[in-house]
Every structure is written in structure tokens, then in C-alpha cells.
């Protein structure tokens, strides 16, 4: 084998896993609706489409109701756009990595990505057909953060309970109605409870028409964020 061909062969062998990985599960598109109850007992409804591209590291929410609006979440900033102009922006870190879309595409939703975080598994137990696992933050952060409980059933995440450092529940999420699309298990219904100042508020997120690895719509998957 000539030296040049040999180099090409070794390059391909080394890059093969990268090529294979890149070909599978890199995009999610779905119709979504979020129905929420406010603390004052009024409601909010949001509807639209969501696009996520693992390679571009962007989540794009194209909202149709209450008013047409676009939200783009990047690695470091959340942008709200109206008529393609920036309406607001806010710094944020870790939203892409911990988003349900990214976790699902990577097959990490079953432990909510905690396996790859600074949290450590403190214990597991079976109860009522649920595998309940307790995750604890690193010792140096235990004065700031509390434990997290996960419940799994049939290898799918069913629920997550997040505590603060004083063992008070901050949030509960329930992942229901899993659909298997192109080999990806995705919860089509998520119920979330939050407890700001002791008052329970909740929201229900529903996904429909889920598409995995859609071809086309590149401009939306990599939604251009205008300069100020």
C-alpha cells in the first residue's frame, strides 16, 4: 500500500466513529404546546414548533400563540426575537446540554444526564415497579444545592424531584406517553410542578408530530441571530 493510501486508510479508521455518530440522531422537530397555571389562578398557553440541532447547538422555538415570536437558545445566551430583531437576551449556561432534546438524542434522558454531571449516585431502590435513584451534589456544593431523586420504569425516566439544600422540594417533573420515533424514546407529555414561595404552580408540555433527523429546514435549525 502506498504511503498516501495508508495515511488515508488510518485517517478513515480513526474518524469512523465520528462519521457514524454524526449520521445518527442529530435533530429533533416537534409541534409543542405549553399549558400553565399561574400563582393567581390565571393560565398561560404557548403553541408553536421547536427545532433542535445537536451539531449547531441551538434550540429554536417558533411560537405561533399568543403572538408570533422566535426564541433561540444557544450555548451561552437566550435570545427572544420579534420580526427578526432582538427583543431581549439573557446569559445562560448549560441549557443545551441539559435540554430534553439533547438528552434524548444522546440516550441520556434515563438518568437526566446526571451520570455525566458532578452529581453522584448515592443509592437505588425498587418500589411499586419504579427504580428510584438518589443523586447527591458534590460535597463542596451541598450548602447550595440539594439531592435529586429519579424514578425509572422500563428503562425510561418517569419522574424527577429536585430538592434544595434544606430538603424542600423545588420542582417535580413527570415524563409521560413515551413514543419511539426512529429508535428514540421521547416523552410526548411532561408535567412539571414548581413551588415558588410554597405555592404550587404547574405546567403541561405536550409534543406532537415528532421528527428525528429531518432533512431540510436548515435555516430554522441554525436560526441566524442578528447582531444588535
Amino acid at each position, binding site marked *: 500500500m502506498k504511503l498516501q493510501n495508508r495515511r488515508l486508510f488510518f485517517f478513515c479508521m480513526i474518524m469512523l466513529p465520528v462519521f457514524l455518530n454524526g449520521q445518527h440522531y442529530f435533530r429533533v422537530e416537534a409541534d409543542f404546546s405549553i399549558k400553565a397555571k399561574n400563582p393567581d389562578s390565571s*393560565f398561560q398557553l404557548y403553541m408553536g414548533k421547536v427545532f433542535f440541532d445537536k451539531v449547531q447547538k441551538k434550540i429554536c422555538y417558533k*411560537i405561533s400563540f399568543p403572538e408570533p415570536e422566535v426564541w433561540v437558545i444557544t450555548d451561552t445566551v437566550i435570545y427572544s426575537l420579534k420580526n427578526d430583531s432582538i427583543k431581549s437576551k439573557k446569559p445562560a449556561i448549560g441549557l443545551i446540554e441539559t435540554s430534553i432534546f439533547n438528552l434524548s438524542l444522546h440516550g441520556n434522558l434515563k438518568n437526566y444526564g446526571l451520570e455525566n454531571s458532578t452529581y453522584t449516585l448515592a443509592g437505588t431502590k425498587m418500589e411499586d415497579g419504579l427504580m428510584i435513584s438518589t443523586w447527591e451534589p458534590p460535597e463542596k456544593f451541598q450548602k447550595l444545592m440539594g439531592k435529586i431523586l429519579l424514578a425509572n420504569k422500563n428503562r425510561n425516566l418517569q419522574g424527577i*424531584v429536585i430538592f434544595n439544600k434544606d430538603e424542600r422540594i423545588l420542582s417535580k417533573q413527570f415524563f409521560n406517553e413515551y413514543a419511539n420515533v426512529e429508535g428514540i424514546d421521547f416523552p410526548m407529555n411532561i408535567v412539571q410542578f414548581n413551588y415558588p414561595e410554597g405555592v404550587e404552580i404547574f405546567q403541561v408540555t405536550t409534543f406532537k408530530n415528532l421528527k428525528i433527523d429531518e432533512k431540510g429546514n436548515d435555516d430554522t435549525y441554525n436560526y441566524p441571530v442578528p447582531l444588535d
Partner: protein
Amino acid sequence: MRMKIIINLLLVSLLISTTCFANDADLFSYDEQKIENELSEISQLEAFLLQNNGTTYSDLLMSENEIAGALSYSNSGFMNFAMLEPPLGIPSFLWGFCFGAVGMLVVYVVSEDRDETMKALWGCVAGTVLWGVIYFVAFAAASSA
């Protein structure tokens, strides 16, 4: 007598451990029917909007839609509802504390919010003071050794 106490203690500890287990399982249940009932009107509105694509909240208010009266968007924006809050919440103070002047600059440029920038500034000051103390102590320890 001693045997009776041991058995009672064992029973109590068994009861306590069972109760702990039950508490954890209870955390993963909720009243689905209650949620469904509470959101029934909003679900009707959702069905209507799916059939009438492009209808906005303003359109509903103009047409004096009854269910639209139950909606309120004054308190918070979409961000609070799309699970977009950072999971571990990195406040502006920590940006300044961990990344110093650069973190402060990030907060200033991105948020364009004076209050948030001030929090980052205090974080930056606290971080600088802490590192100064650590440096001073380490230097003193090295000199005395």
C-alpha cells in the same frame, strides 16, 4: 423483658424504614384528573387554535373570546415555562466571582442590566478579595517554612 425491647425496637426500625420508602414513592405520583380538569378550558382553546392556524391572543381578545379572558401573560414570559431557566442557576454574582472582570463584562454585554452588572461587580470584588487572602496566606506560609 430485654428480648421484648429488642423485638419492639426491630419492629419500630422496620416501620420507620418502610415509611421512608413509601415517602419516596409518593413523590412520584400526582392527581392527573385534577390537572386535566383544571386545564379543560385551555385544552378547548388549544383545539380551537389547531383548527384556526395563525389566530393570535390579540385576535381572541378582539373577538371577545370567553376563554381568552382566563389567560394572563403579564407575570412572566415564555422563558419561565419552557424549562429554560439554568438547572443550577448561575447568578450574575457567580459570573463575577468565578470569572472576574471577564464574567462582569459577559453579564454587562449580554444582559444590558445595571442591577445584574452590579451583582457581577460584587462577585468580582468578593472573588478578588478571596484570592488575595489565599495568595497572602500561601505566601506567608511559604516564607515562614
